[in-house]
């Protein structure tokens, strides 16, 4: 006897890309604290982590998957992040694309209906090459990532603070208006607000069973096509 209830449950592959370049060193402690906060909140609300499957990618000169897209129940330790190196977005986007190619089939094989992945990018600087010089070379890897012809292309939602600029964030965002630049609060405070926003986004998304992005983020300017620097 088959059950009419045996339907697939939606899940949202969620990537948090954290800039861990040397300019982030002043907020290193805050970064580690806020990750604990996010973990605490998610672990106490299993219905949110049922929906949003989270992976953490840190990037500086290179990019690393510091937390694989595993069930949050299975996490036994949180990464201790250290900030150094440059802001190499090319590597970040390359690793993200690789991971999506692995994670989406894994979730599908686990019987989930996989929604388009979302990548939240947290950065305090401008894209650089491996020598630390500001560059536009990241665009090539970025376009490969968000190429509409690639079935699994993610939504990218950037959050910037410190030295991040509106034009780069705007360019990285795949959804008009879903790019946020901190006004003038300190970087630590901005980071806390970003993580609180991330959490609220996941709560709302789980409630609606689809990605729900904030219309506004306290202390941040919403960067859209309508805003000209």
């Amino acid at each position, binding site marked *: 006897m088959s059950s*009419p209830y045996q*339907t*697939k449950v939606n899940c949202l592959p969620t990537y948090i890309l954290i800039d861990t370049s040397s300019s982030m060193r002043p907020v290193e402690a805050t970064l580690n604290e806020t990750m*604990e906060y996010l973990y605490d909140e998610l672990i106490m609300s299993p219905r949110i982590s049922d929906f949003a499957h989270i992976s953490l990618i840190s990037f500086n000169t290179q990019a690393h998957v510091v937390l694989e897209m595993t069930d949050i129940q*299975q996490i*036994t*330790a949180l990464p*201790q992040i250290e900030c150094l190196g440059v802001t190499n977005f090319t590597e970040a986007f390359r690793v993200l694309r690789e991971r999506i190619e*692995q994670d989406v089939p894994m979730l599908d094989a686990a019987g989930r209906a996989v929604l388009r992945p979302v990548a939240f990018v947290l950065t305090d600087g401008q894209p650089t090459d491996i020598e630390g010089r500001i560059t536009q070379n990241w665009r090539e890897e970025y376009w490969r990532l968000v190429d509409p012809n690639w079935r699994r292309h993610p939504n990218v939602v950037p959050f910037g603070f410190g030295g991040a600029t509106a034009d780069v964030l705007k360019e990285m965002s795949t959804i008009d208006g879903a790019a946020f630049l901190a006004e003038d609060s300190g970087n630590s405070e901005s980071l806390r607000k970003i993580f609180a926003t991330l959490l609220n986004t996941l709560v709302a998304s789980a409630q609606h069973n689809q990605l729900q992005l904030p219309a506004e983020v306290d202390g941040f300017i919403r960067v859209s096509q309508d805003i000209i620097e």
Partner: protein
Amino acid sequence: MSSWSVSPFPPVQQLSELTIGTTLHENGGQSRRVTMLVSHPGWIYKEYRVEPVGPEIERLDRLVHHPHTLVPADLHLVNGNTSWPATRVVDVGRTTGVCLPIAPPEFSREVTMRAGKRTITLQVDLLALPGVDQLRRDIPGQSLPARVAVCASLAEVGALLERCGLVYLDWSFANAFWSPAGLAAYVIDVDGCSFGARPQIQSHNWDDPLVPQHTLADNGVDRFRVALLVARCLTAQRGPGVIDHVRRLGDVDVALTPVRDLLLRALMASRTGDRPSLTRLSAALTSAATGLSGDGGQLPFTTDPPAMGGSGVTGWRTIDRTKSRTTRPRREPTVPGPRRLQPPRTTPVNPAPGSRTPVNRIPTPPPRGTEQVPGSGTVGRPFPPLVQPSGGSPVATAFLIFICALALLLFVVSVLL
């Protein structure tokens, strides 16, 4: 303890006479916000997003009054196990919301989290987890008898609403709390109940396959959703595979056979009318709760082993919810690029040509055979002791063979001589 029977409010309450306190929730479901009431400790004010008018006002007033019509046993349930609306709140003639009692303290618990101690409300979201995962959250692991008792309480509330002709529909992990000490359930948002059928509401992961959204939904939907909630809490299985686990309930303890049969009927019926009433489910659960043997057997679930892995950052902070201790990682030379975690275990995945970037994974769990020492910072799950293969170690076996061979040699030599 606040409850409908000790309501300090008239049936219709002026908003201006309420002092609003801390906001608990915003933009959840039908409410714009839910706030504590400074003027009435133990009560909350739920402000609606959309102003109720006409029949909606009548419905609210009828709901506020309804417990007056109940027999003492049912009134006891209303007071102890539901957040039943005590008054309709108006502001300059417009209905703005309702006042509801706060759940008794037994439905909350102080837990130790990484950021310190915090009191949380125990939503049944946390009951529908395996015991080991509850322990990791500093919540006592719930045995099968405990789960059955809580589910009996939950179904009892469902049965009460059904008897009253009230359609709730909004059964979910977030709308019921549970008490590990009292083994009881507490249902919130009762103000959303309708007298009789109303359009189906959207409730992701609780979708009734027989009653699509926007079609009329009656207690048949409540029967399905309560059954699904009970099934998830009993088996600690949250996904579509829950039905397979329900099928195995009777194998765990024969006292659960009637519960299993009713759950399967509720979840798999091809017509809503064939779903058993919540009164029957409640009675079966209550009977099972008293009939279960001591430990009540183990839940028929399996838990995946922790993910293994290694590196990429300077270290890992172990998660020990019971002591909130952090194992300070050993810091390694600060060179940008790939690094190894503690303990080192890396798996290269699709490295770029010439690249040695490791893929960073979860650190290796403690070796098998170790157990968690309170306060040691050792990661959560204890591992079963190592089982030695029968026959002992290879060294002991070799030594035994050597002795036997030597004895045989001596015997042969002594015979020859």
